[in-house]
């Protein structure tokens, strides 16, 4: 007998507290990158570093006639100049992913531009751009240890988790990089953020090669190489600020594709009638490993500590009160499990379980990964011939919680989003305390939806949307979104993005969970550190990798 399970309600799933509890999963981009690229040929082409590890390294990733190359520039940086904030102008290393094999001229051109990042200039030959700073305490410790012929302290390795952390990864037309449309027909990058994931994966390899090189230069007689198992346990850190938050508001159709993939996966898994022993065991193994990994989830953020505590208690509750009594003979085990989890666990626990339920099901997940990009152009046009009654109905169906918010209260209007003139980066500030709200970015979606609903309510007679817009073009951006959510129900955050209760890092965590980030470590309500590729196969062993490396 089959069961027809509905997708979860967007009005619940798209609340920021829920989105801010998402975990990495098989759908995450860095995991699907490794699955899709594990039959490509990874090679270090050039290693031209001095005894301090400064210089150039080039890696290539190739298959058939296609080659991508990461060009890395390692530079000397005074400790006083090292900053993860976007206002920094110098970094320990800078990276660019080049399309093809770079010529000597290309490398010289890039050497003059890539270390400058935003104020340098790339070209259509380059695809993604990034920079990174060392974790000073771990980097120096690892080099000292290796040069003395010892492996580094495992406790410190676990505590930090990475040798370098990136502070931005740019792509798609920024600073002269190739526009997405120029490469969109390449089948290997159909999946989401493939080139960004490739860059970060290769940067991780760069960090290992650099420490091995410097240790060897420091003490050629006694130095040893970083143990492979230790290297595997290191990822790449990342400091992420508000820049990511507007992205998910500004790309509604893409956001829908990401969330829908997860919701569709959950629906299909809940509809599975019969689950075998291996599938259940894999789920339990991943749950147990997640519980172990929690011990290394270090943060000083009270907000995150409370969430971790809830997650720990959720896992114990699940193991003791549900999994201990699970019967493989039962039908629709996953659906029963999900229903119990939804009633008994916090959002952290629920979303972890949803992620883990995907682990046994490549055949469900892989086709969904291929649907996680969006042709945003196809949702741009506003159907002017539709009626204002249609528009009102869409709002009342899709934004019913939003139109209940009382924006006459200062608390609901407290913040405004703006772009910093100094760094051209998004920022958020208190509307009543700071200047600049007249230059507010169009990210107050809930407020503008409410405004649109009020105006539609006050219309004396039905109009076409074209007629309505001719007098209300100030709300054109929001009318466009209404016709997107009509088709794509997970395209909109169902919360107030300018209220006093806003926790911007919830928006960052949503995006980073799709990247595959772990160990969210909020440093304030506006930025956090994370780790990527921790536990991932090394470049030399990617061909033999398995997809459960995250839980090894």
């Amino acid at each position: 007998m089959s069961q027809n399970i509905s997708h979860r309600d967007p009005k619940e799933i798209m609340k920021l507290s829920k989105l801010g509890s998402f975990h990495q999963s098989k759908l995450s981009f860095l995991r699907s990158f490794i699955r899709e690229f594990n039959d490509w040929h990874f090679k270090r082409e050039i290693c031209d570093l001095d005894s301090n590890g400064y210089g150039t390294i080039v890696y290539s990733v190739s298959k058939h006639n296609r080659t991508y190359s990461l060009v890395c520039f390692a530079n000397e940086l005074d400790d006083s100049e090292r900053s993860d904030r976007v206002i920094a102008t110098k970094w320990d290393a800078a990276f660019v992913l080049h399309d093809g094999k770079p010529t000597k001229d290309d490398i010289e051109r890039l050497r003059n531009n890539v270390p400058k990042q935003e104020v340098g200039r790339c070209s259509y030959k380059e695809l993604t751009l990034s920079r990174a700073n060392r974790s000073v305490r771990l980097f120096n410790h690892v080099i000292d240890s290796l040069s003395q012929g010892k492996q580094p302290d495992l406790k410190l390795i676990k505590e930090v988790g990475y040798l370098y952390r990136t502070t931005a990864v740019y792509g798609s037309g920024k600073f002269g990089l190739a526009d997405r449309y120029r490469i969109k027909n390449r089948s290997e990058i159909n999946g989401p953020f493939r080139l960004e994931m490739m860059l970060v994966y290769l940067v991780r390899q760069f960090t290992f090669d650099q420490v091995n090189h410097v240790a060897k230069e420091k003490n050629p007689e006694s130095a040893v190489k970083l143990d492979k198992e230790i290297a595997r346990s290191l990822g790449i850190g990342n400091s992420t600020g508000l820049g990511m938050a507007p992205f998910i508001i500004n790309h509604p159709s893409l956001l829908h594709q990401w969330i829908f993939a997860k919701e569709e996966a959950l629906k299909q898994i809940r509809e599975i009638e019969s689950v075998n022993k291996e599938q259940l065991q894999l789920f339990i193994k991943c749950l147990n490993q997640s519980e172990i990994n929690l011990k290394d989830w270090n943060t000083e953020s009270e907000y995150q500590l409370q969430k971790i505590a809830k997650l720990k208690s959720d896992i114990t509750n699940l193991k003791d009160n549900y999994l201990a009594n699970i019967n493989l003979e039962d039908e629709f085990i996953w659906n029963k499990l999900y229903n119990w989890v939804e009633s008994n666990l916090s959002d952290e626990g629920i979303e972890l379980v949803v992620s883990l339920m995907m682990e046994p099901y490549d055949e469900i997940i892989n086709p969904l990964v291929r649907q996680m990009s969006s042709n945003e152009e196809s949702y741009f046009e506003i159907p002017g011939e539709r009626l204002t009654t249609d528009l009102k109905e869409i709002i009342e169906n899709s934004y019913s919680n939003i139109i209940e918010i009382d924006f006459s209260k200062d608390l609901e209007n407290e913040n405004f989003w703006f772009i910093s003139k100094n760094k051209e980066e998004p920022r958020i500030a208190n509307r009543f305390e700071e200047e600049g709200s007249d230059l507010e970015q169009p990210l107050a979606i809930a407020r503008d939806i409410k405004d649109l609903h009020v105006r539609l309510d006050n219309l004396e007679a039905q109009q076409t949307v074209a007629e309505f817009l001719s007098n209300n073009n100030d709300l054109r951006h929001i009318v466009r979104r209404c016709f997107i959510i009509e088709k794509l129900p997970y395209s909109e955050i169902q919360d107030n993005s300018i209220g006093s209760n806003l926790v911007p890092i919830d928006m960052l965590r949503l995006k980073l969970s799709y990247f595959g980030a772990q160990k969210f470590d909020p440093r304030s309500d506006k930025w956090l550190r994370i780790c990527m590729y921790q536990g991932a196969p090394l470049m030399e062993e990617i061909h033999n990798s398995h997809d459960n490396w995250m839980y090894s």
Partner: protein
Amino acid sequence: MITGCTLEMRTSSEIITVSKRAAKASGFSWGVSEEIGKNINLLEMFNLSGVENFNQYLKEKDSLNLESKFNIANLSSSNSSVCCPIFLGIYLLDNSNKVLNLKKIKFSRLAYPLIFLPFMQRISYNIGKNIRLNFDDVQIELHLTNTLSINQDLKRKIIKSAEAVTIEVLENEDSFSNKVWEELHELSTNTFVEENERLKSNAAGAGLVDND
């Protein structure tokens, strides 16, 4: 490897973002600015001077006293004021179905007609018909497949105004004669297999007579 670009050229992403922000900074709403960003990039993709025309338009728009409210029924060749290419373009885009029904619209005095052009391109795509846009001695055919043909070289030109403008929705029609079609069709049938009696009865799903 991508080819056909210069190393220095601005990307579409940059053109869209900068045009959109410049529009907003010049008093347009965010929604209208989104339309402008898309259109300026479209002009540049057609190798027309979108950025140059838009920059000049922004410098002059306040002194031109441009008309920004329209009624398609009253658009005529005797406009008293000069039409804003952006607001008129948006108005017609939102009323694409009316443009389709009217078939031909004539009016006078349009500022910066090249900025108006991408709106016509998008209407052509929306209604699934080619559109002929004439302004003064310039004739442009906009094809629903996102291409256009122009009767003169407009590359690097800034056109500040047009006196007489005509928008004509073209009927979709074949560009070839029936005779040519038949010749080509005849040739294409050489890929078919002649059916014998057994194939006629066995190679398809239903029976030869299905009177049940």
